[in-house]
């Protein structure tokens, strides 16, 4: 699903260069449930943004679904991303003035789904996750766990091949955290590849594979040793 070869990412600010990632080589297969763990500032989020085709590496090669992304332009990356990669963050990042339904609807709109199709898909998903009663509520009327669930539903509504999550339970209590992790496990069981970044050993323990990072290096993962 995702393969990187010697990925390097350097941030340049005011003539100071900071290496965020050094020679990252990872290989994530379809259906994997992977966690990237490590302390703050180790490069988890940067790596996630690169494999999510949002950010560009400074050097190295990146393959997504066996397509070489290395030289792809922004709009080509955006096209590949659309419908194929879902994102979940510590913050739910919902649009305040849109209802639960409308927030989940966004990716379908940009994929040009017809209104009727959108209603069918979203209502089915909301029923499946016992959230249909929240359909017309606004983000401000939801608790944090519910907000995060809406953000997960929005990320997976197009049935993407890859779900990327950056500290998805960072704002939740233990009960909320477990519920979200259960949802992720369920999605993975349905065949979705999931990569989540976390600094919590508890969460990384729940995934099949853990990639440990430190100061921009992968120090270990279950498949690759450096």
């Amino acid at each position: 699903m995702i393969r990187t070869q010697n990925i390097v990412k350097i941030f340049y600010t005011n003539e100071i260069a900071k290496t965020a990632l050094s020679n990252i080589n990872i290989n994530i297969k379809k259906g994997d449930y992977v966690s990237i763990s490590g302390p703050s500032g180790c490069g988890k989020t940067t790596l996630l943004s690169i494999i999510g085709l949002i950010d560009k590496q400074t050097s190295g090669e990146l393959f997504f679904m066996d397509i070489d992304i290395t030289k792809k332009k922004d709009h080509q990356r955006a096209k590949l991303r659309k419908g194929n990669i879902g994102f979940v963050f510590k913050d739910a990042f919902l649009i305040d003035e849109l209802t639960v339904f409308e927030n989940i609807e966004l990716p379908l709109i940009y994929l040009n789904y017809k209104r009727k199709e959108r209603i069918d898909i979203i209502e089915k998903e909301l029923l499946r996750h016992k959230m249909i009663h929240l359909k017309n509520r606004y983000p401000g009327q939801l608790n944090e766990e519910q907000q995060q669930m809406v953000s997960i539903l929005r990320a997976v509504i197009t049935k993407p091949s890859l779900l990327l999550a950056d500290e998805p339970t960072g704002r939740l209590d233990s009960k909320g955290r477990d519920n979200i992790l259960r949802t992720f496990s369920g999605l993975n069981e349905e065949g979705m590849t999931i990569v989540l970044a976390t600094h919590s050993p508890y969460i990384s323990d729940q995934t099949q594979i853990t990639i440990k990072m430190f100061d921009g290096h992968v120090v270990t993962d279950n498949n690759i040793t450096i």
Partner: protein
Amino acid sequence: MNTLHYIRAAVKSLLRDKLYSATNIAGLALGIGLSIIILLLIKYELSYDSGIKGSKNIYRLTTRGESPDGIQTVSNALTPLPLSGLLRTFHETEATTRLIPGANKLIKYNSASLKQSRFFFADPSFFNVFELRIIKGSVEQLNKPGNVVITKTLADKYFKGTNPVGKKINRDGIKYNIIAVSEDMPEASHFHFDLIASISTIEKILNYNRKILDKLEHNWKSLVCYTYVKVKPKADLRIFEKHLNKKARLFEERSKPENKTTTATSQVNTTFHFHLQPIRSIHLHSKLDSELEPLSNPFRILIFISITIFILLIISINFINITTAEPSKRLRDAAIRKLNGARSYHIALQIFTEAFIISASATILGLVLAELMIPAFNKLFNLSLKLSQIQGLQDIGMVIFITFIIGIISGGYPAKFFSGIDPVNIFRNRFKLNKSSFIMRGFIIAGQVFVLMFLSVLTAGIWQQLNFISERYPGFNKKNLLIIDRAYTIKQNYEDFKQEIKHIKGVVNVSAATSVPGEGYMKNIFSYRGINPPKKTPVNVNFVDCDYLQTMQLRLMKGSFLNCETKDSMGIILNSTAIKELEIKKPLEEHIETANSQNKSRKFNILGVVGDYNYEPLDKKTEPLGLVLLCKHNFFRYIIIRVEDRKDKRTLSAIRNTWNKYSDNEPLESFFLADRLNDNYKEDSRMLTALMIFTLFSFFISVLGFISYASFLIEYKDKKISLMKTLGIPDNYILRNLIGSFGKYILIGVSLSIPTALMIIRIWLRNFAYTEHVSLLNLLILITLVAGTGIASISYQYFRIVFKKNYHYLTKR
């Protein structure tokens, strides 16, 4: 394309922040309302003389010419009387008419006076050229002497509820029979009438004196009437004009022997050329002598168009200011959408949908506001604009175009600004604009400063010039001068009347004259033979009595004034310009000559020299002037009375009573000269008032803009400010830093606007012979005001956002 989603999201976004939306829509609506009114005003100005049926084919004949010696040039709206007869012989002519303004004489119906009625003589074909609807009666008999057609307005005013046709009115001892009631000339016309009498009535007035009438009717050198022609469609006007002039020259040559006798306005040796002037172009483009009514000029249209563009620009900038005041929330939303599959154009489309919804709502509200504001504007500009004048596809298209343009300009920058967000920012939870967008935002605020400063300097410039004109010493004391018009009704009783008026408490002096400053003067060519070759120049002549100098309080530079005792009928007082033009070295020992009505030389001894005074409006340079003593048999129109205080009701009432005693109950028509002189600049004053309103509006919008920019600036420098606060750097230092960031854009706007505005003012000042430019002090005041408003806005926002709250780096984190 999910149009419904964009509309729904835009409406929800607007409803989310009601204050933001309301401010945005209110600002836009007010601007659109004002723009609609200005567009109506422009439309009104451009529609002059197009309200008459077939106006496209109606032309006024004008006269141009130059005397062989080049001394006298003619550029006049008047033509000779026989021209109309010649026009009739051309196949291009559909109809032609002459129009002669009647003197300002009292018109009576029974015992009622038809006050301030505009009286004209015209050919019966007048209503074939100007196809006005005949409401009552018939105009067929307009060829008979003493027949008159009146307008509906006059009929409604003086013949309430009765049919005026068949009724008799009296003017100067002649009875006129009302034969028809016509509709009024459209308001936007270069002339208006209340009564049109048959031109043959003039024969009656002149007691059918064939000698005089023949001279008039065959005189090609006297400019006495306005001639209009309606040409057939598709007529070749160039050829028509060429043939007309060729034939006119032949007739002129043939009639020369009879032409020896001429009136005062005749130009014996000048060769005339007649031109076809489309009546639709008169209001804006005619610059001729003897116009029937004051005209406008294209500069005013230019100013109004500029104001409209600037208003639309400033309200669009205001939209940008408000939309981008605190951008992080919108940037966040844009990033979320992008991460969920939106492309930049989706975001742009979303912003534009919002902008179009706002501009469409504002247009609807603007139309309502325009309807509410129009009565005040009508009062200000003495017009009758109506919102219903927006009609037809073209006008509706224009309103839609305005809405569209506002949407495009308003939405353009925010669309670029928000759609450019890189979704990677969402990983860092950092929603901030990049440096180039920040600089661009600065230039937008500089644009707003430009518009505000431009309008302010323009307003100040026009204000200063009009103030200069009204305050400038014109060479005589214009205050407290009461002018009685139609004073000839006093006739032989003038001396007794004058003595009685002089004894009224509060009256300083009394005089009589054929002309007063601001009115037309009779022009004669005078020659001075004291040098070789003799010097010739046209001199304006005013017949005055011997108290004119004291009454007007002129400056006598040399010699003495006209003396009633010595009856200086052959003496003349010249102004300094005349002395200079005629190159007279020792004026008191010299005489000048002019040809009299029999073309015989007539000598005038120069008795004295008066300092130049502005006897013409200030848009003209002072020309040579000669003051000649008014003889008993001379016709004079004005009595000039200097009073101590124009507000003294008792003095004015006593003057009225004396008038009534001597004038055989003719009503008193009087005005104060200062008011009449200021009337010359009424249009400019109105333009100034409009400019002031728009400048105030743009100031109000700019204050909103400055406040929004200040909050934007604080948000942009948020990290820096919070760090400085944490490090204990004093507030005044941080504030100074922010003012510096804002100040450079104010400086850019100010420095670009001042030269532009001064250039426009310079163009406008070309209309005046005497000018005053915007003073440095006024410019400094304006700069201080604009810069001060900017500083106050940023200080206010700093106090509100930073100073009052615990704005430290750690809390911000």
